[in-house]
């Protein structure tokens, strides 16, 4: 085996070429890692909302809260199911909420964007133990007040504490508090009083969704069978975790597919860069290769040595790219969630798995980019190489 230090030091000797090639790889890995971190951010943001012992009930066939409609008597029937836990005061531990989407001016741009507004009852916060009012106060039931999620507060006209905005023509809501929930998708929503919202939008006595907390996570199957077999209700019952998983799937998959396509496309450029660099290295070191072969090093060890050099070169670039992508976690990005068609704010979320995949991706680029030059080095005629430059 040709010593590894031979390969590594050769990279150091031609530092400029090494840096330029590694930079090409770094940029591709940056895109690759950033996309995976974004997709992870989407999944995490949406997945954070889910609890295993909570079931979400929507109208049969609707793929999200926005498209669902359950009338209030049916909602009462659902919340009073025997599998639903009771609060200390005897009422069911459940919330029946309305979702609407409004259009607001986005600050810092000329455009407008959709914002999801959730009509809630006074139990909404208590039902979600991770949520709290970070600033200001909770909204008063029956009032024209609202609280705004941390992620979108200040990003739209009127969505800052103390400001107001038109939820419907001539119907203004005043922001009295900021909602915190560890960066979950709830932080991209506006919460207003359910009845205020329903009257503003002229909705009949119905809600978009019902969430119930089960007496135990194991009671889910029983609740689902009971509700879905009731032909009067015509509802779909899902675990909240599964519900958010499905909600995030479309957006995350779309971002991931587009991003990975771009990364793979550009990786060809980086691989060609590595290939050119390694071809030049083989050409410049013909006599060294000839000498190593003369000393008794096999073709395979020459091949391995140049492949190793190419992989190390790419890994260097990969590490830089992955590290740069990690710095993206300080950047917040808002995109339209396909499930609600409203804006949702994400962070790039690095994980050890993503960093490992990024390095593997870089290594594979090095392997493919270095393959032809390494094969050329291994097949070199010893005598010609010894006479060579």
């Amino acid at each position, binding site marked *: 085996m040709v010593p590894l230090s031979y390969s590594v030091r050769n990279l150091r000797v031609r530092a400029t070429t090494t840096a330029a090639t590694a930079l090409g790889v770094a940029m591709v890995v940056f895109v690759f890692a950033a996309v995976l971190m974004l997709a992870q951010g989407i999944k995490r943001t949406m997945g954070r909302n889910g609890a295993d012992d909570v079931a979400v009930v929507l109208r049969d066939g609707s793929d999200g809260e926005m498209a669902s409609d359950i009338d209030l008597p049916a909602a009462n029937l659902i919340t009073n199911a025997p599998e639903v836990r009771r609060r200390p005061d005897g009422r069911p531990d459940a919330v029946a909420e309305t979702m609407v989407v409004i259009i607001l001016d986005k600050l810092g741009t000329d455009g407008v964007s959709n914002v999801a507004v959730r009509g809630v009852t006074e139990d909404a916060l208590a039902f979600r133990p991770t949520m709290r009012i970070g600033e200001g106060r909770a909204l008063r039931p029956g009032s024209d007040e609202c609280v705004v999620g941390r992620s979108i507060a200040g990003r739209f006209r009127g969505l800052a504490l103390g400001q107001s905005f038109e939820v419907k023509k001539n119907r203004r809501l005043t922001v009295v508090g900021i909602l915190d929930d560890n960066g979950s998708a709830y932080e991209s929503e506006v919460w207003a009083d359910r009845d205020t919202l329903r009257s503003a939008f002229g909705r009949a006595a119905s809600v978009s969704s019902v969430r119930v907390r089960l007496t135990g996570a194991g009671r889910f199957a029983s609740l689902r069978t009971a509700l879905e077999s009731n032909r009067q209700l015509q509802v779909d019952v899902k675990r909240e975790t599964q519900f958010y998983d499905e909600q995030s799937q479309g957006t995350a998959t779309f971002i991931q597919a587009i991003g990975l396509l771009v990364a793979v496309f550009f990786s060809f450029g980086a691989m060609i860069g590595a290939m050119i660099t390694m071809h030049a290295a083989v050409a410049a070191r013909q006599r060294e290769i000839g000498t190593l072969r003369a*000393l008794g090093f096999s073709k395979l060890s020459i091949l391995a040595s140049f492949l190793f050099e190419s992989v190390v070169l790419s890994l260097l670039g990969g590490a830089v790219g992955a590290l740069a992508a990690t710095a993206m976690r300080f950047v917040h990005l808002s995109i339209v969630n396909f499930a609600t068609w409203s804006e949702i704010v994400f962070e790039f979320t690095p994980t050890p798995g993503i960093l490992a995949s990024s390095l593997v991706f870089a290594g594979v680029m090095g392997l493919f980019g270095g393959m032809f030059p390494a094969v050329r080095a291994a097949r070199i005629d010893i005598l010609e190489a*010894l006479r060579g430059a």
Partner: protein
Amino acid sequence: MTTTTQGATQPAPIVRIEGVSKRFRRGGEDLTVLDGLDLTIPEGEFVALMGPSGSGKSTLLNLIAGLDRPTSGRVVVANNDLGAMSDGQLAAFRARHLGFIFQTYNLMPVLTAAENVELPLLLTKLPSAERQRRALIALRVVGLEDRVHHTPRQLSGGQEQRVAIARAIVNDPTILVADEPTGDLDRKSADAILDLLVKLNTDMKKTIVMVTHDPAAAERATVTRRMNKGLLQ
């Protein structure tokens, strides 16, 4: 200068070349570089191969070193019929039996003197500490124990060639092949290298086959063979 003699007390031949021809095709023309050549080199001999350019001396050296194959005839070195060996077997043969000394030293510029010398030992199963110990001994033999951590760029031509000689002897090869070992050196450095080769031959009983244009170098060998047009004279 002496010539080879055949006698009852002659040591066993380490190199046997029987009816070897080597032909190349160059520019659409057949070129006979070696033409039915016979040569025997006994163990422990220091042979200088001389002759004008194109006489076939380097080709003969390459055949003995297992770097090339004859078009016809047999090359037997240390009881190995090189013509019958695969590329991989030839590589293993070179690693085990050959020590190379090149005109341009051919050291790895990014490795230190000690690392360069250690290279052939990487093909053995010796542990790292033993490899380093042997590399150090080889460097001591060539008088460079104080240049262990120097890279080739930090050494003079003569010192580089001495590192190359240390690399050539570190695995205790059966035979040393030297292709114009003093060709790139001034007289003083060349003489020092030749002194070293003579010492390796006399003290360590190394068989040496050296191609040279330099009559002063050839003088130091025990035997000089002259070649012309692919034949030994």
